[in-house]
């Protein structure tokens, strides 16, 4: 059965427990730079927003990639970045309409770009999705 995450960004406090849990699940380590979830802080709006890949049906990132590093996993149907194929061109980060594909530095931003992972942004600024921007916070 396929499941989906429902995120209510209005409730987010920015504690980063989710990033910690994600890095632990995927890498067995407490290291938020390895998290697939990225919580963005919109300081002057007083908003924290957790971003995860939305797994679009029509994945723009996948079409944009010049080296076919983003592929559909046959078993789950998920769009997955193959780190060993990616050359670090960042075209996918521009293509993604939600800004959820991110570049990470942990494998060595200044040295081996080709082995870069793609889930943590070093690029800004970023806009709050309209759906979240307009909703008043209830807590």
């Amino acid at each position, binding site marked *: 059965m396929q499941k989906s995450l429902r995120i209510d960004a209005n409730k987010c*406090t*920015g*504690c*980063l*427990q989710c990033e*910690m*849990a994600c*890095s*632990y699940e995927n*890498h*067995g*380590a*407490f*290291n*938020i*730079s*390895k998290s697939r979830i990225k919580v963005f802080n919109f*300081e*002057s*709006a*007083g*908003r*924290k927003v957790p971003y995860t890949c939305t797994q679009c049906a029509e994945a723009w990132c996948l079409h944009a990639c010049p080296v076919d590093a983003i592929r559909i996993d046959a078993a789950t149907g998920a769009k997955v970045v193959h780190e060993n194929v990616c050359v670090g061109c960042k075209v996918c980060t521009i293509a993604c309409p939600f800004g959820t594909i991110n570049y*990470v*530095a*942990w494998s060595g931003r200044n040295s081996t770009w080709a082995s870069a992972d793609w889930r*943590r*942004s*070093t690029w*800004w600024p970023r806009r709050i999705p309209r759906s979240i921007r307009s909703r008043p*916070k209830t*807590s």
Partner: protein
Amino acid sequence: MAETDPKVDPLSPENKLIMTTGPLTGTMASTGGRYSVVTKGPLTGAIACSNSGGYFGAELKMAGWDMIIFEGRSPKPVYLWLENDKAELRDASHLWGTTTWHTEETIKAAHQDPQIRIASIGRAGENGVLYACVINDLHRAAGRSGVGAVMGSKNLKAVAVRGTAGVPGIKDFKAFLKATTAAKKVLADNAVTGQGLPKFGTQILMNVINEVGALPTRNAQDVQFEGARNISAEAMHEKRPGDGKSNLVTNAACFGCTIACGRISQVDQNHWSVTNNPKYWGATGGLEYENAWSLGAANGVDDLDALTVANMICNEDGMDPITFGATVGAVMEMYQMGVLKKEQIGIESPFGSAQALIELSHMTAEGRGFGKEIALGSRRLCEKYGKPELSMTVKSQEFPAYDPRGIQGMGLTYATSNRGACHLRSYTVASEILGIPVKTDPLATDGKADLVKAFQDATAAFDSAGVCVFTTFAWTLADLAPQLDAACEGGWTLERLAEMGERIWNMERQYNLAAGFTAKDDDLPKRLKTEPAKTGPAKGRVADIDKMLPEYYKARGWTAEGVPTKDTLKRLGL
């Protein structure tokens, strides 16, 4: 502590500045994001140890650093750039003379990385304001005793960290996740940490403490403030007439914190204090109870947005709002008495003047005019103008938002705190007012010596573990011990933690004794001991410190002069 000579001049190159994380910092333990700044404090001349949340501490740990020790003095302004194991001092001449907000933005832009975490000083730290703090993540502060002034004296503008190495070395991951998950449930199920703090923040206390008659008002002339409601948590939630919005935008958490007491506030853009100053228009760190008290009740000011702006100025330029606000309270009293005139201060400064508060905040932050005198703190300022009795300090540090005439245990807490008057080392308010872990009578003195000692020892353990002291509303050492034990070697039991806390307390005490402090310095301002509370449940009461102090020394195993006995030191292995 063996690092520096206790006699050292706090602002000389010989003093050292230590930034340190705890074993749980950067882990999945709730609130595990804290770090401390330890040095000899310039305000007090005693040991200083200021603790802060935000994200900086966790990032430092993720970069692989447990502790940084700064020695000497740089010939020119620098900032420390840490990228995992790479450490580099970089030129900060272009940042000198600017605020912490500007510094964070500039460093992040220069490195093209918004994920960098920064702890910096503002102009207050550069100008040697004796209660300057170190600010991280724009509005989190290692606040008290002037640790920021020590940083400034070293020409160190900021520490910027990017850590992508992670936190290795958890002893037993499985046991750790089990223990931290159980402890998070305790926080979630508790009324204070699960509901009160996230909804109202520490500001939940404003009306409570006012009602029990322990809200020091107008430089502690009164113990109840008629304007308390206007500056309370409830008021922060209400829509204001000006722009129809509430002062409070949302709550926010520090790294790893499942409580999320933090306040994010926004003031009305048409408020007179910010109309020409768009940089204060955005949402940013809002009022905590201590700041709402020190900037508000202590000065008789009840303009919520003005207090929020004064607090922003304190964050922006890195000043401790407790000492700053309480010092303004002393200035206002001297103005009222005619000791200080408008010409000297530069503005009419009667109690209740929000205009004076805002103007003096700017002047002190920027090192202008009379602000240079407010920068000294109230003890030095009041002595200079011949009114030492108007300084509400212990060991030269202003006491915070609980009047010992209405909460007796806090009197003993202030008098014996190793870093000068402070509420965070033994928060007996929890017991005396909130009934945590057991209810004691706030007006009684019996049993307070033991209570204070137990709180001090436990708090020392919590602080050094790298978790937030606010967890103690729900956690006891029995909740902390399994988390620490799963994370580190050493067999961390409840008893061992309590003993460690006691050892820390005695070591700090020894440092202060070597620095020249004596039992005479374990005393409260005369006003609290001689001028009875005028209203409220504590009406007619003074702070009975003289009764509690000898009992406390005894409970600690110290001599009548407040010196740890040989037996006590031996028992603690010191």
